[in-house]
């Protein structure tokens, strides 16, 4: 734990390494291609020289004297026998060669032109303007210079240089050696460099042709010792070995006057090794391979892509003090809580600094050891480690707890195990929005899963079919404060996406509230007390006395959990979405929710009232009373839901879909009619009598007409089925209340499944001219194209079953494609917008200071606090403040 002011990096300058600089920062010149001797000791002046750093415990660095983890590692260098070009700069080298004179080295522009371009280039280089703009200007200037065939300075005739990819340059068919290239680049005067977008203080063009190669420290390319004692070198080391070997052979051949051909071959080989050392995926070069045939992972490969250094180690990091396990539901927890298994709580710790104020308590804590329990055997937090002021950590065991509790003093830190009330971050991937990571307070539970209230499933998009989630324990006070104030679940109840609730009742909660309030049922005193006992409410509503017995009304019971003085007025979901006239429409008493002074007077509480996305009650409570009242309401509502269902009882099953025989037969006749209609259409089509719709071919018209017919029958059969299924049917209750499924799904089970589709049309793929081999070629009738007349309940015949699977497959493929596409879109969006923020004047600016908007969203309203996008819900405010008179 360091304290005080920490250093801050202000900026990072980039530049090229000059050969001198490489030699200067090098600790050792590497000349042997070997690594370790037979005893396993690093060979001097070899690739594992002790001057380059240490990775083996016990050894000390020959440069800085540090041990493992102390020594940061040091560079060495290799003197190449002959220069080679740097593959990553090949384009720039070409640009320089093209644009400068081969004789005098000047840029092939007249002095006037140079004078004209320089100020602009200077400005572009120093204003830190658009990188792209600079690039465009450089290209324009150099292209102009390259087009000259005679040097304006020395009048020398120029020749065209061709880049024979990947690394060879040719001039009139003759190879230009890297040595020659380097000489030419050296001739370019400093003054001309500006026109290439370069600054001689930062980089000289000849540095792009390598004469010295820096050797990275061994920390960058550690040797791996396998369990068998076998050593395995890093890919970079392998590559460096190759480079040294060839360089040496080249030097020998050159010095003892070998034929030019051999020298050239060796030179090319050296070029190959240096090239693949930088980038082993260069186009036109076969990748260098490991003995096993695996392509080596060299410098560029280490940095690039999703698994590269940047995206996987720099932008994202692995953390300690975190945990991951399966999740399961726990309706008795608050939405703000997370149930943490004891095993996890014992492992995760919170650092507590010892001060004169808490030293006694801390001593007590340490004395308990690492696995204490209270008298009744319940979990209480212990201490796993204590940290001395010099950062030495001491592990606490049952044996040393007593002694260590005495040793602790002010300035020490202890690492205390998790306890109830600690704030932690809880997360489920993919983290698509900020509600994917929220602050929860810890509740220690038995068993081995994380648990939370079901109302929080929606923001995490979690279910319990094996989902796992992550938990992070915050390590400093600042982070904990931010988590409490900003990230806590109750603070995140409204989504910034649309300004409505994202946390609310789901499935059974909605069913239960529906059963409790629809038609305002009466409950006996016993039942009522039973229900209310689930909630922390300490009084009963006013009773209704019939025959001397006390009865309580459902809406009155629901009113118990509403905050005092709460007002709301809206329509229930009951009728929404039903086509035509809804049978419940006339019962205003059930349909229109009216809450006045915390009392539900009329209406049914269902999806429209308490669910995520639409729940009016949750939204209005949050706006009027704030986060903690809103979360208390959700807590009580979810508990009451269980109470209600335990009293009333609710179950669903296949017999929900039993419909009388005459309904079955009328569905059958409807579908027969449809098939007849389709056949008639096909007949007309085949006779050429079908009139095409405007802008459509006859074939398309037929398909459209048939789809119309099939859609119609499905609706009809749904109507017939639902006519026999009323609100006493559990499945219908779920659909009507918005708890789960739609009426359409019920009609699929009870009535008929209907037309299967692929890409918005009937199924028409598979074999030539037919979907399945059971049909005749060219059969375009209803059955042959995926019209399923059976219901799920009665079961599909084999042909229908296969066609249904074809339709179902599309959905699966779609989901798979969609996730990757939308994931990439979101990554790009985040990357493009991450720098935007609101400044103190409430403008939108980016971090480099450009203004994007003068007033955020034209009115400066935070969508998360808005009322579904509007600044203030005027109608509700009037209703709430003034009441009915409006």
């Amino acid at each position, binding site marked *: 734990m360091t304290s005080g002011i920490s250093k*801050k*990096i202000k*900026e*990072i*300058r980039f*530049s090229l390494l000059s050969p001198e600089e490489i030699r200067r920062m090098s600790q050792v010149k590497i000349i042997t291609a070997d690594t370790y001797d037979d005893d396993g000791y690093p060979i001097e002046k070899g690739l594992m020289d002790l001057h380059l750093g240490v990775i083996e415990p016990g050894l000390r660095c020959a440069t800085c004297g540090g041990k493992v983890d102390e020594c940061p590692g040091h560079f060495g260098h290799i003197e190449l026998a002959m220069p080679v070009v740097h593959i*990553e700069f090949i384009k*720039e080298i070409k640009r320089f060669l093209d644009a400068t004179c081969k004789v005098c080295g000047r840029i092939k522009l007249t002095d006037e032109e140079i004078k004209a371009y320089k100020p602009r280039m200077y400005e572009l280089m120093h204003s830190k303007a658009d*990188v*792209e703009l600079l690039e465009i200007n450089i290209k324009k200037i150099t292209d102009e210079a390259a087009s000259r065939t005679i040097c304006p300075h020395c009048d020398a005739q120029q020749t065209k240089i061709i880049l024979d990819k990947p690394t060879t340059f040719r001039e009139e068919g003759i190879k230009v050696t890297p040595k020659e290239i380097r000489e030419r680049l050296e001739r370019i005067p400093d003054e001309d460099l500006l026109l290439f*977008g*370069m*600054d001689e*203080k*930062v980089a000289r063009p000849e540095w792009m042709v390598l004469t010295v190669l820096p050797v990275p420290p061994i920390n960058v390319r550690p040797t791996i010792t396998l369990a068998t004692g076998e050593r395995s070198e890093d890919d970079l080391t392998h590559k460096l070995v190759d480079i040294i070997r060839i360089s040496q052979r080249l030097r020998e051949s050159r010095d003892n006057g070998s034929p030019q051909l051999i020298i050239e071959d060796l030179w090319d080989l050296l070029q190959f090794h240096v090239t693949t050392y930088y980038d082993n995926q260069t186009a036109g070069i076969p990748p260098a391979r490991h003995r096993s045939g695996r392509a080596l992972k060299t410098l560029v490969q280490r*940095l*690039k*892509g999703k698994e*590269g250094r*940047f*995206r996987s180690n*720099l*932008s994202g990091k692995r953390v300690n003090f975190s945990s991951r396990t399966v999740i399961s539901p726990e309706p008795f927890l608050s939405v703000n809580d997370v149930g943490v298994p004891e095993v996890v709580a014992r492992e995760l710790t919170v650092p507590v600094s010892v001060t004169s104020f808490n030293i006694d308590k801390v001593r007590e804590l340490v004395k308990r050891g690492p696995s204490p329990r209270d008298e009744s055997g319940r979990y209480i937090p212990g201490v796993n480690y204590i940290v001395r002021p010099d950062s030495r950590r001491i592990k606490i065991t049952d044996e040393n707890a007593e002694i260590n509790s005495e040793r602790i003093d002010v300035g020490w830190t202890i690492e205390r195990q998790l306890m109830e009330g600690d704030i932690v971050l809880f997360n489920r991937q993919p983290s*698509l929005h900020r509600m994917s990571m929220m602050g929860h307070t810890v509740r220690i539970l038995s068993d081995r899963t994380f648990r939370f209230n079901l109302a929080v499933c929606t923001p995490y998009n979690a279910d319990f079919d094996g989902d796992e989630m992550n938990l992070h324990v915050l390590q400093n006070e600042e982070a904990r404060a931010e988590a409490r104030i900003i990230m806590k679940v109750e603070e995140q109840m409204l989504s910034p*996406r*649309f300004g409505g609730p994202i946390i609310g009742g789901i499935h059974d909660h909605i069913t239960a509230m529906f059963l409790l309030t629809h038609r305002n049922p009466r409950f006996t005193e016993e039942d009522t007390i039973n229900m209310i006992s689930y909630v922390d409410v300490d009084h009963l509503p006013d009773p209704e006395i019939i025959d001397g017995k006390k009865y309580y009304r459902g809406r009155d019971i629901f009113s118990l959990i509403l905050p005092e003085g709460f007002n709301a007025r809206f329509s229930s979901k009951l009728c929404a979405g039903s086509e035509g006239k809804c049978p419940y429409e006339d019962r205003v008493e059930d349909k229109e929710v009216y809450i006045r002074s915390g009392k539900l007077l009329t209406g049914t509480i269902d999806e429209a009232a308490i669910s995520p996305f639409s729940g009016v009650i949750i939204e209005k409570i949050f706006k009027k009373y704030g986060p903690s009242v809103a979360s208390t309401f959700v807590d009580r509502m979810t508990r009451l839901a269980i109470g209600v269902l335990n009293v009333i009882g609710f179950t669903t099953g296949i017999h929900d879909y039993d419909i009388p025989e005459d309904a079955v037969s009328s569905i059958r006749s409807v579908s027969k009619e449809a098939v007849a209609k389709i056949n008639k259409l096909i007949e007309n089509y085949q006779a050429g009598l079908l009139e095409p719709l405007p*802008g459509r071919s006859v074939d398309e018209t037929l398909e459209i007409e048939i789809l119309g017919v099939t859609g119609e029958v499905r609706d009809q059969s749904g109507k017939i089925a639902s006519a026999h299924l009323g609100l006493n049917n559990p499945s219908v209750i779920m659909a009507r209340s918005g708890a789960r499924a739609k009426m359409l799904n019920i009609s699929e089970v009870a009535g008929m499944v209907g037309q299967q589709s692929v890409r918005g049309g009937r199924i028409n793929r598979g074999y030539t001219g037919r979907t399945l081999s059971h049909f005749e070629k060219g059969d375009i009738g209803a059955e042959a194209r995926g019209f399923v007349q059976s219901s799920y309940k009665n079961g599909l015949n084999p042909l229908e079953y296969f066609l249904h699977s074809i339709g179902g497959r599309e959905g699966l493929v*779609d989901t798979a494609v*969609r996730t990757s*596409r*939308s*994931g990439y*879109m*979101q990554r*790009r*969006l*985040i*990357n*493009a*917008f*991450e720098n*935007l923020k*609101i400044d103190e004047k409430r403008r*939108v600016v980016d*971090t*480099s200071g450009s203004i*994007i908007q003068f007033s*955020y*969203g034209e*009115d*400066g*309203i935070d969508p998360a606090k808005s009322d579904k996008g509007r*600044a*203030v819900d*005027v109608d509700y*405010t009037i209703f709430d*403040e*003034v009441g009915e*008179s*409006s």
Partner: protein
Amino acid sequence: MRYIIWKDLKKNMTQLKKRAPCPYALDFSLPESPRVTDVLITTNGKEAAYHLKIEEISGEIDESTLVKKTSKKPKQIVMVRSVSDIMPVELTKLKFKKGASLSKDKVCIVEREKLDSVSKADLFVLDDRAKKIIADFEKKGFTIPHSLAIELSQKIGRFKKKDYERLIERIGTDFSRNEVDPHEAVGIIAAQSIGEPGTQMTMRTFHFAGVREMNVTLGLPRLIEIVDARKIPSTPSMTIYLKKEYEKSSEAVEKVMRELENTTLIDVCDLETSVADLTITITPVENRMKERFVTRDELITALRQSRQMKGTIIESVEGSEKIIIRPQNESFKDLYKLQEALKVTTIKGVSGIKRAMARKESGDVWVIYTQGSNLKEVMDKIEEIDSSRIYTNDLNEIYNTLGIEAVRNAILLESKRTLEEQGLEVDLRHLMLVADMMTQSGGVRAVGRQGISGNKKSVLARAAFEITAKHLLNAGLTGEIDPLAGVAENIIVGQPVTLGTGAVNLIYKGFTSDEE
């Protein structure tokens, strides 16, 4: 109240405004009775935007002070007392005297209960009540936007004093509480809000939107297309309205559609190439010709005018519909070239518009939907269309013809529509931010390495996004400096980011010495 109304030029109005009161020479006579002194002027034939007060003139007038409406011989001279800008009144909102219409008669009498003579210069379109509301809020120290004031003026005007005060207080506090917090990372929130529902969108490229007969890309692919700022959308389409005077006439619609649809020779004719006598025979197909409203004469004139047909011999066969064409030089190569050129010869229409379809929409108004888009040419070429209501989903075209502000709004509208059509609720403010960010530079920049991300100031941020090595190496070459201002680069070096709580510093100075 009664008004006289006529069409006039903007130029005249500005001149009158400068000189009024002054005499004005009209090229028509005012109606004798009833006498009306109030005049509404329309400059565009759609809405009246000026209000004049006139008087009759008696006696001599000074020629030099006279303003003339046109160069035509003046018929009557009136005295213009005052000219004022008014909130534009749509002509359809005015009650015309029986049988009269502005296009037929140069001048006519209209009625309207009351004219809101709010000057345009005043705060947009605030009426007195709204202004009072704003003032009332200001008294309590709240600033509210006009949109809210207008909404309130319709809703809270008639409450008792006590209730009114209370409402102002509550709404004022609510509003200021709902404002965004400084340093809020609105960009990331916007990106998440658009990206998160992406997983719930359909991939189905084709869907029947509005017009059943036409395909339009929707859902996720369309959204990606918008943020990519793709040069050519996969399904360009236009929505065209006709000017008010034509919009109900089916003849006008048919005429416009005929002018719109780009018809090539192969669309209406069959081609037959004879290698033996080096000719191409064109056989017009009757029903296809009819469908596309092409006559044989039109066909021949089009062929004659076509540039590729230069030098060829075009003969029409007597007694038959056929047309025979011979190449200039008798060579097979030329014949083949000619055949290929013929296939794509445009007979009529606007290039790029493959199909046009008309549909009657609410109020018996014809709307034309097209497959393919060419905003500039349609607006230039076809007179009957109402260019104030024309629309295309080709953003690049909007940028090229109407400019950056227009394309900003188009991005907003298109992304809003795409999300709405999928039934996804996304706050407009997020989409606005995307549209503003994409158009901030003055051109349309895509979201991605070619656009916004590729132009970031920070080397590390660019390297972390895509094409890592190239950015790092170039930075070395040019000696770039990373100022470590943004989010990605500070995460890379392990520093707090400059957004949200990371943007503020809290320094504890300890006790000052005298407090100790």
